[in-house]
């Protein structure tokens, strides 16, 4: 069998769509103006940016002036959290988040803790989902910001954002005027519907490279009327929210990617679910001692996070890589570390079992043949690594003896 190349790590990043590349290209060499310039080159650039802003607004069901372009999901999360903290810290200094947020949120919260903020990290239990009751109990008159991700990047678990949005609305009506709600929707875009009005969020982060757009461009949605403190100082770009010459090609790219994500949502979502469910079903059938991490229902259609008893995830991942298959253990950000992922620890996996987890994440370009190849390849790999494992060997001896 010839060596294939199969990319099943679409939660880490995705291939840029050819249509998106086509949209970007003219802005490198033809319409290369600076959007702040008043001549024709500048005006072309500006127009491209405003068109992209419209496309993103439509994807989210927001309005164009609620869209701020930034350099990616990390900057969007930072700007949302520190931007609210600085603008409204006089009303209280408490933030509520969860234990399974992305490092872009957790490290920002940790930074604010050093500056005297109090941060509550909500538990997520075995299912990997925060509970409204916990959130309700955590809220105080000091709470200025709730930041809970729309879906988790390792497990794919969907958080109850709409319900939290309602709770926030109630609290505001009950007098807690200075309560803001941010969600990191980086993983959800293009996989499930994300509608800022329906969710009732004040701020929302996304990044193009997770939905077939380019790396280096993201968006912070800020609901009309919500004030944040800018975190970069310079020219008057992005209505004074984010200084720096706009990357016109990348912005044109995220605009196009947003349009495609909106137009093809149902179809892509169904395709991802089919592939993911097929993989899980067959793996459960042919490899013993596998468990699923996180809730089986309330999750993205694109992610399967599975635990293989008695083996180490990295050995599986590298062995698959040698067969041409890209998957990940934990998130890309924490790779190279020897600690199990904070997300797997949060759902109660021990250091030992947490190390045996793999994340398969599907993208629109994957096929059923890709899954078939994994199904042919993976059992032998698991078998080999288990034959090395003291615990697995002991277990199989016991079973043979029984």
């Amino acid at each position, binding site marked *: 069998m010839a060596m294939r190349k199969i990319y099943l790590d679409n939660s880490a990043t995705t291939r840029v769509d050819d249509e998106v590349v086509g949209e970007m290209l003219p802005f490198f060499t033809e319409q290369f103006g600076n959007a702040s310039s008043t001549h024709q080159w500048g005006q072309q650039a500006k127009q491209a940016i405003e068109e992209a802003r419209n496309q993103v607004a439509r994807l989210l069901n927001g309005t164009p002036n609620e869209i701020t372009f930034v350099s990616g999901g990390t900057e969007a999360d930072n700007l949302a959290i520190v931007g609210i903290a600085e603008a409204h810290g006089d009303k209280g200094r408490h933030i509520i988040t969860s234990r399974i947020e992305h490092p872009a949120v957790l490290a920002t919260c940790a930074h604010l803790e050093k500056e005297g903020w109090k941060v509550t990290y909500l538990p997520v239990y075995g299912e990997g989902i925060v509970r409204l009751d916990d959130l309700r109990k955590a809220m105080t008159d000091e709470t200025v910001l709730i930041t809970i991700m729309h879906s988790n990047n390792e497990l794919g678990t969907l958080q109850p954002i709409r319900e939290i949005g309602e709770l926030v609305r109630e609290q505001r009506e009950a007098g807690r005027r200075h309560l803001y709600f941010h969600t990191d929707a980086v993983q959800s875009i293009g996989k499930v519907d994300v509608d800022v009005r329906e969710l009732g969020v004040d701020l929302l982060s996304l990044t193009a490279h997770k939905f077939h757009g380019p790396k280096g461009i993201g968006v912070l949605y800020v609901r009309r009327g919500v004030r944040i403190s800018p975190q970069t100082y310079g020219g008057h770009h992005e209505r004074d929210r984010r200084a720096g010459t706009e990357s016109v090609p990348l912005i044109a790219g995220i605009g196009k990617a947003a349009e495609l994500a909106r137009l093809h949502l149902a179809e892509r979502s169904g395709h991802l679910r089919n592939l993911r469910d097929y993989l899980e079903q067959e793996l459960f059938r042919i490899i013993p001692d596998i468990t699923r991490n996180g809730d089986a229902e309330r999750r993205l259609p694109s992610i399967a996070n599975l635990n293989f008893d*008695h*083996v*180490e995830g*990295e*050995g599986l991942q*590298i*062995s698959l890589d*040698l067969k041409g298959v890209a998957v990940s253990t934990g998130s890309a950000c924490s790779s*190279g*570390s*020897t*600690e199990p992922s904070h997300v797997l620890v949060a759902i109660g996996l021990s*250091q*030992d079992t947490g*190390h045996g987890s793999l994340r398969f994440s599907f993208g629109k370009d994957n096929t059923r043949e890709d899954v078939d190849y994994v199904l042919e390849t993976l059992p032998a790999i698991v078998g*080999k*690594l288990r*034959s*090395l*494992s*003291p*615990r*697995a*060997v002991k277990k199989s001896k016991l079973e043979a003896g029984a």
Partner: protein
Amino acid sequence: MYSAKVLEHLENPRNVGEIENASAIGKSTNPVCGDMLQLYLRLRDGRIESAGFLVQGCPPSIAAGSVLTELVTGMSVEDAGRMAPRDITTALESLPRNKEHCSVLAIDALRDALKLTP
């Protein structure tokens, strides 16, 4: 990221498994990452006649166990007692900086088997 040698041992680990009638058994665990390695040796006339290993750990720890069994087979117990983590790293061409401790895991098991203080 990993050397060709590490990857080769990961794909084809040598001397996998317990040895029947092992004359010495060594175990080691790294408390940080939780990885553990077991080494089985059959000794005859002050030499290591054959070796086997089991490991639950990262790719470098698998490669380290595998290459260790190769290196020590045929070696005098005395020479084996002088082996150090460097010898493993060298035999594997190289290890990433944050994975150098995996060679220690293998040597610790060897020293445990030979009843040397680690």
